[in-house]
């Protein structure tokens, strides 16, 4: 019953980072040479943010649905791991923003009495599968 599936691409994040980078770049052009320094710095930073970070984040995001628990692991610097017993889950949603729809991605959100947890940017098919699986396992847990 062990099933590990890597989560799909974080394209929205990438697009967002691109926007932020270009917005920052506009403020740099004061004196010809000195003014271009911050632009360059921002560009390098944007390159890192756009080119490297999403890939790393994507590779680090792991989820695993076991018969009795959901296990979430994520983060590059702040590595965090969260365990949620299925018996505590109250309901499950899938969500899709406009940008996500463009790329055929969805987010699965499940709620405990203490608040929501999410698995972001799964492909819509996988997300539906994950949602149904969590719902079904939760029901089984409740019947025990």
């Amino acid at each position, binding site marked *: 019953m062990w099933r590990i599936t890597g989560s799909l691409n974080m394209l929205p994040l990438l697009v967002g980072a691109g926007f932020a980078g270009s917005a920052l770049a506009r403020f740099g052009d004061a004196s010809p040479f000195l003014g271009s320094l911050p632009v360059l710095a921002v560009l390098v930073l944007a390159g890192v943010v756009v080119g490297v970070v999403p890939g790393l984040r994507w590779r680090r995001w792991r989820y695993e649905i076991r018969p*009795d628990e959901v296990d979430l692991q994520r983060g590059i610097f702040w590595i965090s791991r*969260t365990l*949620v017993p299925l018996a505590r889950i109250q309901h499950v949603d899938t969500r899709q923003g406009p940008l996500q729809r463009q790329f055929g991605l969805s987010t699965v959100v499940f709620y405990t009495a*203490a608040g929501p947890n999410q698995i972001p940017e799964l492909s819509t098919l996988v997300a539906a599968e994950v949602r149904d699986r969590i719902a079904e396992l939760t029901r089984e847990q409740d019947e025990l």
Partner: protein
Amino acid sequence: MSSEKHLHPVAMLVGAIKTLRRWVSGLVLPGIVLLMSQGFSLWTVALFLLGLLVVAALAALWGFLSWRATTYAVTDNSFRLRQGVLQKNERTMPLEHVQSVDTVQGIIQRAFGVYEVRIETAGGGVSEPDASLAALDRGAAQTLRREIEGSYKARPEETTGPTVLRRLSTRELLVAGATSGQIGVAFSLLAVGSQFLDNFLSVDFARRLVDTLAPNWLMVALILVPAGLLLAWLLAIAGTILAYTGFTLSREGDFLYIKRGLLERREATIPLSRIQAVRISEGILRQPFGLSSLRAESAGYGEDEGVSATLFPLLPRDEVEEFLAGAVPEFAVVPAIEPLPRRSLRRYVFRATVPALLVCVAGLICLMVFGSALWLLSLLLLPPFATYGWLRYRDAGWALEGERLLVRHRFLGRKTTVAPRRRLQSRGVVSNPFQRRVQLATFVAEVASGSGGSALRVKDLDAGSAKTLAVSLGP
């Protein structure tokens, strides 16, 4: 028992006063404007009084009508409330969804010996009760309560009423007020008040005052600051007395009953099965005397003090265990607390001194720019902040005993939280690069509380034990 019942007639009065208050607050401003513009002739005053009379009469009529329209009934497994004069409104609540039944006695209700009954269900708003019956006499209130609570669990008939677990004595009440640490709240109140005064004192007056006092402003500060503190302290005591006079905690079967209040008597019921976690907090003023207060986190239960209900406002630390064993046995543990590893002390001290360090750096820069040695004084900030960090390190810890998780930490006061493992909604381990370098991690567990959750957190415990903790607390 399923017949429709009316409220006690005093409900008319309560309703009337409520409407009156609402209307008057809307009318006061136009009324005053009218009075001012016309001058105080006999005519306008008479007109004003007449208007007031009419409004009062209307309010009384409205009170009567809404009393006549309000009925309630308890049928086999639901509570039904009908309300509304013009717009009829009927509300049905399944009894198994009722979280708590509270009775409150305001000043009017007290004068007539009746009770307001509030019924809360899970998911209701925090500020407004889901159903509120303005006035019921004692018998009716008791019957209603029995009927609703009876449905939680079939109760043996021969129960002999709730047993009183503990009462707050007058001495304890005063001590609780004196050490409540609500001084901050009272102080901000005071600040608002003084600002209000400022608007009234003319600038001219203020200038003259300053002129006369300016030479010895230090004196003024020396007098004003302690006076303000004293006043704030007295206000805090008064607030505590208002809220907690006659605090009584009793238990019957699976229910806790809490009675408290000086002017407004409150009676709350907490089913034991709804308590998610118990917090033992020792404020900075209380810890030196070995005192603490207890509160319960409970799901879907809103009261004025955040979302957690006070279980007992003042209790000597060494009696806590005994008290918990009597009141909420599921939470009664005070096991040895596992301290944090030695290497996390450095992180705690560093975290606490960051603000002081920033000030120091700024001070050093100023020293270089202005050359005045006075800036070196900023270095004096370091020791107290470091001590604070050390205190936080010393008091942080966790324990796992059987089915219960216990977490202790300090912000200002020291707080210990006990939560049974089956109440934990999720567990997690977070670590950042600096923590990973020395194999430390932060452990977080969440319990349900109010409409959201509240977190139990231990910073910088050994990464290995954090992981074991997170995994072993699983189902």
